[in-house]
């Protein structure tokens, strides 16, 4: 009896969790207005009529996410190596500092980025707002800690005797690092990088504050489109994002395991 109640509850929660995602997919094939239920019929028309206005934002979102992920991966991995192996004073405080952007709401990161562009304009007369570089740097601020955390976590489990063995067998420290240590740390760092990519691709507030008419990311485009008019092809775009995300997740699940992936992401 209790078992049935529990299973029923689980089923209910699953329905709740998948409901909006299912709705996006169903609405994208509906031949009627996108917000009406039930759909009067089904069509593929929306996919061939995707508003071309969505393509530049998609391209920009990918560029910004790749850029921010690259900066975050290099800077974050270096930081994690220094924190684990260096002879730094006040390591505890330093690692808190490296992770601190995670404690700050991304909206506030958007606000301070916005103020930063104003200050640069006032001081140097250079306009940095509404540029791709501003978006990449703004996103890097909250992407970096994801990689630091993941790289610290994977290093904590790394067996240093492997590196020592390489050294004893005649490898130089540089060889030992690049040919033994780094390959073993890569899955953890990759998990952090994927997290950073997803966080960048998900972001609205930072892109809203730093972007302008020339730099509209895909989430901002969707966010502002629904405010003014409900472009019917928006559901087709959203469905493609869902499909892309699910494929990425299946790959991550295969490679690292989704639970382990999330574990490294939010320790």
């Amino acid at each position, binding site marked *: 009896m209790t078992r049935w109640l529990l299973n029923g509850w689980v089923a209910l929660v699953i329905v709740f969790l998948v409901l909006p995602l299912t*709705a996006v997919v169903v609405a994208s094939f509906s031949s009627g207005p996108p917000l009406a239920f*039930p759909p009067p019929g089904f069509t593929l028309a929306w996919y061939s009529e995707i508003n071309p206005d969505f393509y530049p934002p998609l391209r920009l979102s990918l560029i910004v996410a790749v850029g921010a992920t690259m900066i975050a991966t290099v800077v974050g991995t270096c930081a994690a190596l220094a924190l684990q192996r260096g002879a730094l004073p006040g390591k505890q405080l330093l690692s808190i500092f490296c992770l601190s952007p995670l404690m700050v709401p991304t909206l506030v990161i958007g606000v301070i980025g916005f103020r930063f562009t104003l200050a640069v304009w006032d001081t140097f007369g250079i306009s940095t707002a509404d540029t791709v570089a501003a978006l990449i740097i703004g996103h890097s601020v909250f992407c970096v800690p994801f990689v630091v955390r993941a790289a610290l976590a994977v290093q904590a489990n790394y067996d240093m005797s492997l590196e020592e063995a390489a050294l004893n067998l005649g490898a130089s420290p540089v060889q030992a690092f690049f040919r033994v240590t780094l390959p073993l740390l890569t899955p953890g760092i990759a998990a952090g990088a994927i997290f950073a990519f997803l966080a960048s691709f998900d972001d609205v507030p930072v892109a809203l504050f730093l972007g302008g008419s020339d730099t509209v990311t895909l989430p901002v485009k969707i966010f502002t489109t629904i405010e003014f008019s409900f472009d019917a092809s928006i559901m087709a775009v959203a469905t493609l994002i869902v499909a892309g995300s699910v494929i990425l997740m299946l790959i991550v699940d295969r490679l690292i395991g989704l639970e382990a992936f999330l574990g490294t992401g939010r320790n």
Partner: protein
Amino acid sequence: MMSDTPAADHKTRLQDPDLAGAWGWSWFILPIVLFLVLFFLLPVLNLAELSLRPHAGPGAVGEALTLANYMRFVTDPFYLGVLFDTAVIGLVVISICLVLAYPVAYVLARTKSRFRGALIFIIIAPLLISTVVRNLGWFPILGGAGLINWALLSTGLITEPLRLMNNTAGVIIALTHTFLPFMILALVTVIQRIGVELEEAARNLGAGPIETFFRVILPLSRPGLMAGYLIVFTSVISAFTTPAMMGGRRVLVMSTLIEQQMRSVLNYAMGATAAMLLMTMAAVLTVASLRRARKAGI
């Protein structure tokens, strides 16, 4: 290095200056420090300073340094109301999350079913899909001509469509959806740490499943539960995209208020004050939750 015993402390060996030069590694901290000081720390200090300046017309602030903005925030019924609404929405969302999540987390923590992996996948999947897309999915469900109103109208339970969007109800539903997976995952870790033996012992001593839950499992999961509770609450009050999209710009919480002050009203001083308050709340709650988590041994 030869004198190292196999039992030598992992950490001391990592910092062994002979190994790769601990001082050499230390330099690798420079990029992140430079990056975060320039693009994070200094801008935050700038924001703090801005919150101490008086408002002087749209997009301008005065020269004086004053606490007037903070005083105004905690005395003006408008700002206080926004703060109150933010807290209430946060509490409602985490409470619903908790009730929905607990049984699911329990099943996940205890099951040996082969469907566990699939279940975890379904629970985590929404987390990794773009927030705007997830919110968009609620439109055909909660809208005036959406699924819920269609179901209620066609069964004759209501005669007028319910307003479930562009108001607080829509915000709460979508926020619950956004943070439910976090709550489930946090609770799974907590419940897994409670030994099955304890449950079995309670059952052997004659307790029914309900008594076992309320007198054994729930009290034992309380410390970890508080940690999860705090972290989800923090995420809820920090969220911007969902309250803005689902509230249709009509629901003012701290985050939407800040955006409005900075981008439409152009009251930078009050916007900065609200941002400082939100940031401080989020930081304090995060630290509190990490402490609780450590205490609970997670």
